[in-house]
């Protein structure tokens, strides 16, 4: 899993780099992004609780993680809708292109993580936890670059 995450690091690093390179500016809602960040951080926390409570993992905490993760995706979806309503789409210049590709790829990974988490057997929980922390960290980087830095 660690090796796989190294590969993912390179992948997302390059996508973020592309975003930085284009330096597209559009007004993103810092609040909405902040809420999403908080959701994902909270889910990582509950993931940690779930994974660290004994061999079988903790079912309730796992459910909390799933819910928070899903809430994150819904939050992302709402943001997408707002952006598209404001005319910012994938084909609308450099910002739309890089923003949607970057967050879209991240969202897909979160979605895949959710599904895997829902069906993963207990022994796989520790690997999944690693995966989950990793994509929380990736999101933090995205948040810092896309929401904080590019708005500055």
């Amino acid at each position, binding site marked *: 899993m660690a090796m796989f995450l190294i*590969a993912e690091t390179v992948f997302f690093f390059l996508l973020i780099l592309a975003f930085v390179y*284009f330096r*597209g500016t559009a007004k993103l809602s810092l609040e909405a992004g902040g809420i999403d960040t908080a959701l994902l951080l909270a889910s990582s926390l509950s993931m940690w609780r779930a994974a660290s409570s004994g061999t079988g993992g903790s079912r309730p905490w796992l459910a909390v993680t799933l819910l928070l993760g899903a809430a994150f995706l819904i939050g992302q979806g709402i943001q997408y809708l707002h952006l598209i309503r404001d005319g910012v789409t994938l084909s609308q210049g450099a910002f739309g*292109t890089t923003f949607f*590709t970057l967050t879209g*790829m991240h969202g897909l990974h979160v979605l895949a993580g959710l599904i895997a988490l829902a069906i993963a057997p207990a022994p796989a929980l520790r690997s999944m936890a690693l995966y989950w922390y990793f994509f929380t960290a990736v999101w933090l980087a995205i948040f810092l670059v896309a929401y904080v830095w590019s708005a500055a």
Partner: protein
Amino acid sequence: MTGLGAWLCAIDHKRVGILYMLSALLFFLAGGMEAMVMRAQLAAPNLKLIAPETYNQMFTMHGTTMIFLVAMPVLTGFGVYLIPLMIGANEMALPRLCALSFWLQLMGGVLLYFSFATGAAPDAGWFSYAPLSEKAFSPGAGLDYWALALLMIAGGSVGSAINLIVTIATERAPGMSMRLVPLFVWMTLVTSVMIVFALPALAASLVMLLSDRLLHARFFDAAQGGAPLLWQHYFWIFGHPEVYIVVLPAFGMISEIIPVFSRKPIFGYPFMATSTVAIAFLSYGVWVHHMFAVALGRNFLAVFAAASMLIAVPTGMKIFSWVATMWGGAIRFTTAMLFAVAFLLEFTVGGLSGVAFATVPVDWQMTDTYFVVAHIHYVLFGGTVFALLAGVHYWFPKMSGRMLDEKLGRWSFWLIVLGFNTAFFVQHFLGLLGMTRRVYTYPDLPWFGALNLISTIGAAILVFGILLFCANVAMSLFFGAVAGDDPWNAWTLEWAAASPPLLQNFAEIPEVRSRRPLWDRKHPEAPDWGVA
């Protein structure tokens, strides 16, 4: 399960390894046919055997096939087959991932070739420069197939690379520290780490290309604020390490074969291993030498020229070390050794023409000409394929339990050497005369026709040599002399297993105390671990 079913469901590393090699052979023949179509079209000036679009599809498919569906899988196949045997393990660490990676890679290949059936094979070259690869200039579905297939292959390669890393890290026999692994294992390890770091760059660029093509994103569209050069940067950040990914395991094979047939240990193992690491690191800092013809600023190019020249140093160390291994030995010229020696010479030519390209002013003339075509073929055919042929002749007895026919082997060797050099050496001159690569035809300029005809004749000889080799493999599989466990009197652990190895490779895991465990066993009076 028996027969075909057993092969399809195989998760044993030996079977998966063989599957890798067979699929690679199949695609090698396909890629070879594409090459022959091109050589036929180029045999004389102004020929019109095939349409320009068809020609472009041919070289795109040839390049993509040879890199992604031949070189990478066959080297992975050797790794998957040999590495557990070499480190005294009975299995890969993650056997199911091993099978999954293979099928992903194969399905990627099938998807790529399926594009022919839709009538739109990709035609933008194996590095598909944007914006030519964008929907506006390549409206057909071919490039979508290309990108999707490569994404699958990338996934499969990363999977198998991770598996090899974990296997080498955790499954070694007792006593075999990382300092004692055979060089093939070491170089495969370095290669696998490189794959983990390089293939995601390809995946990122493919995702961007697909977003552009299918979702109307604007990554590479200059008119809409995109950056066409971004593709080149990202692709070559993957692409140059890729060259070493398909060369380093071949180095590893040569490092196993030359010592055994020279009856001497490899010269300077620590330097051999360290120079591999140096190559791996440097290969990430040289990608811009594929872009010297772009106006990127003189200083910027100089940086990459320096790094590109520097990479010749560790490569040179290896070549000198191989020669030094032969020096003072007792050399047996089996077919395997013949290919290994030919590798040394051919690869040196390819390496040196590479230094010419690092010299920026030379690159400003010679890049994208047939000089490049000659260079990459000396590296990838003269290097990788010759090493692979040496490897097949060396390990075939282990894999099948039978010897390859030496007489046929020699014939195929000389045909391949003759054909290869005839086909590709003249291409250096074509490049110097100004023939650019990827042209479906050319005007009747002085020498162009004659040199191209020679090249085509050489390619035909090469095909005969390869077919003879295939025939040798097929015949020896059934009629070859029985090999025995250790026909070459070799030193690494795979020769301690049965030929072919049983499902469980080793009845008892041997203990290892030096880099040549079987030498120690055969020479208890002077074991390697006794040498200070």
